[in-house]
């Protein structure tokens, strides 16, 4: 039975929690995803992204809270949800001992698609993901990128309005990543699907997503468009500068400059400076070096990235959070 969720919402999550014994993998998470949106969950390994996606795709029941997907409750009406979603899991779930065509064909049969319709759909999807020449190749013989494309084709077999992609480019080489990104963009642009993806790649979230939720230790710590998230961080520009020799008063000389907001010494006469006015700060640094008769060994200006956003909201970088221990960390049979 469809719930009374707004027809414009593809996914509506209310205060959802998942515990595995004493471990809280997802804690009081609420958000909604509009129809036709590409929504990203950004966070390190063990943040609870995969557990959240597994709850929304009915693989794991929530401990508390509710969620509707395509207007259907994930607990009360899981079959209706499954009929309306496509899932590309983090692990390759296509069968390596079957051919590409067989993998798609059998998945179609699991959705009740049989006969001519099944054959046509299989051929159509193989063509869409550029694997028509490998239709009769065993999945085990495909490269990582091709295998991921096969997974995407399989996830689309029931022509779902909502597609879940769990870390779709993890483990792929740069060329394959770009190919998958293009496919994801195409899926939304041409077919108007809602895409829900998880990633721990900042550039991926920045490039693909209309909105991004930053997840850390099972909680959403920020949610907005990538642009809005970046603007919310003080110091829209990040400057790295190195002097030869070092400044007489070190960071204090830099903090005295009008356009500079904060300074972080990195050692070896190198400083990282946050500033709302990147070009103006760069000019001030050049003048400072001239006044003090110092050589500017290097100077680079970068805009704020989602990396900075993550650091700002969580207090640690993505790489630090990827450490094996911690809340929401994957364990066998538990969250990932």
């Amino acid at each position: 039975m469809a719930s009374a969720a707004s027809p414009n919402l593809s996914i509506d999550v209310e205060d959802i929690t998942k515990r595995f014994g004493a471990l809280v993998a997802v804690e009081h998470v609420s958000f909604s995803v509009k129809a036709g949106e590409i929504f990203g969950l950004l966070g390190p390994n063990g943040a609870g992204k995969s557990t959240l996606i597994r709850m929304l795709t009915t693989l794991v029941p929530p401990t508390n809270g509710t969620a509707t997907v395509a207007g259907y409750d994930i607990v009360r009406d899981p079959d209706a949800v499954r009929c309306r979603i496509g899932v590309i899991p983090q692990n390759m779930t296509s069968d390596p001992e079957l051919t590409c065509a067989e993998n798609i064909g059998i998945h179609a049969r699991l959705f009740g698609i049989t006969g001519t319709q099944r054959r046509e759909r299989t051929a159509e999807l193989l063509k869409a993901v550029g694997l028509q020449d490998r239709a009769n190749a065993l999945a085990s013989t495909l490269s990582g990128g091709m295998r991921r494309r096969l997974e995407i084709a399989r996830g689309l077999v029931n022509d779902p309005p909502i597609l879940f992609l769990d870390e779709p480019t993890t483990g792929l080489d740069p060329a394959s990543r770009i190919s998958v990104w293009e496919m994801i963009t195409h899926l939304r642009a041409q077919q108007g699907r809602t895409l829900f993806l998880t990633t721990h790649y900042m550039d991926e979230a920045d490039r693909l997503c209309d909105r991004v939720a930053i997840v850390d230790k099972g909680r959403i710590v920020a949610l907005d468009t990538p642009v809005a998230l970046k603007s919310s961080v003080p110091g829209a520009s990040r400057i790295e500068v190195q002097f030869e020799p070092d400044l007489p008063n070190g960071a204090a000389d830099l903090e005295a400059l009008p356009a500079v907001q904060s300074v972080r010494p990195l050692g070896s006469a190198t400083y990282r400076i946050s500033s709302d006015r990147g070009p103006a700060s760069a000019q001030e640094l050049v003048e400072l070096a001239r006044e003090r008769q110092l050589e500017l060994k290097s100077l680079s200006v970068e805009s704020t990235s989602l990396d900075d956003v993550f650091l700002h909201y969580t207090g640690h970088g993505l790489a630090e959070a990827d450490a094996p221990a911690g809340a929401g960390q994957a364990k066998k049979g538990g969250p990932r």
Partner: protein
Amino acid sequence: MKRALALVERDMRKFRRSPALLFASLVLPLVQLVILGNAFGGNIKNVNLGVVNLDHGPQSADVIERLRAVGANARTFLPTDYDDEGAAVRDLRRGVLGAVVIIPQRYSRDLLERHQPHLALITDNTDRSVAGAVSQQMSDLVASINAPQVTPRERAQAALDVVEVYPYINYIKYLLPGSVTLAIFVTAMIGGGMLFIDDKARGLHEGYMVTPITKWELIAGFNLSGVIKAMLAGMTVLVLGGVIAEVPNFFEPVRLAELTMMAVLTSVALIGMMFFIMARISDPLVPRAIFGVLNTLLFFPSGAVYPIAGFPGWLRWMSVCDPFTYAVHGFRTLLLKDSGITAVTTDIFALALTSVVVLSGATLLFRRTL
């Protein structure tokens, strides 16, 4: 149910593509049938028998004549003459001889004087089969020496005539029902239980868990594909084994149909049992670890290799609870006795009951979620 057939299609395609599975399912039962079938149950022959004649009279010559007749015809033993009792016993201890017969001094005279002389048979009782066969042959030989040359007139002698209902059943035929059941069991282990766990271990099950396939369809699909594979393995061993063991009138259609039905029932019961055991297991090492134990627990108490009547009480109870027992009995009755379906109703009932119990248990234990 249509979605369950998708799982069947998947498994059948993989099964066809991986003949190693079918091969592995067939090799153990067929090798066991051919090797054990020919190694056990045959007549003991060519045992070296040392003969020490301390008498050298006419009656001992008769004994030696009879021993040589056995050596030339039944060939249970091959007599070799020894002059010295000590040398013969030494050779027995060294394994050169399997037994020693000693004809004592005064044997001929004592026999004629009706003093009941004793022939001595010394056997190597570390091998009970050989010792038993030689003892039996020697008992027959002594009985023939004692038989009166002229039938006494005073009193008629009772005799026992043994009639075998069925044509001669050698051990390989006796073993065939167990081999067929074993083929079904091995396929149930490899193609049923292990494949499901491997799916879990490789994360492949997530692929079908996110489709609308129901819990019942998943259970039906896994079990149906397992039953088809087990049936194929069982019927292959049945036909090959039937030809190897030279079962008479093996291809008689009604009997083949009855055997097929027994193979279906056995497959459902054993595949269901494996699914029940594996329903909550995720570690792919577990089924491999319990394979040998299960094989021993189910195969040997079933009467497949030795009659249940020879078991101690506790083992007989195990065989009552063992679904293998009913499969082996059913196949044996249909294969060797050709007694028809009515003779195996208890076996059919027991296998059907096992199927219902294990599949109900598996349904309760099986989880549709991760």
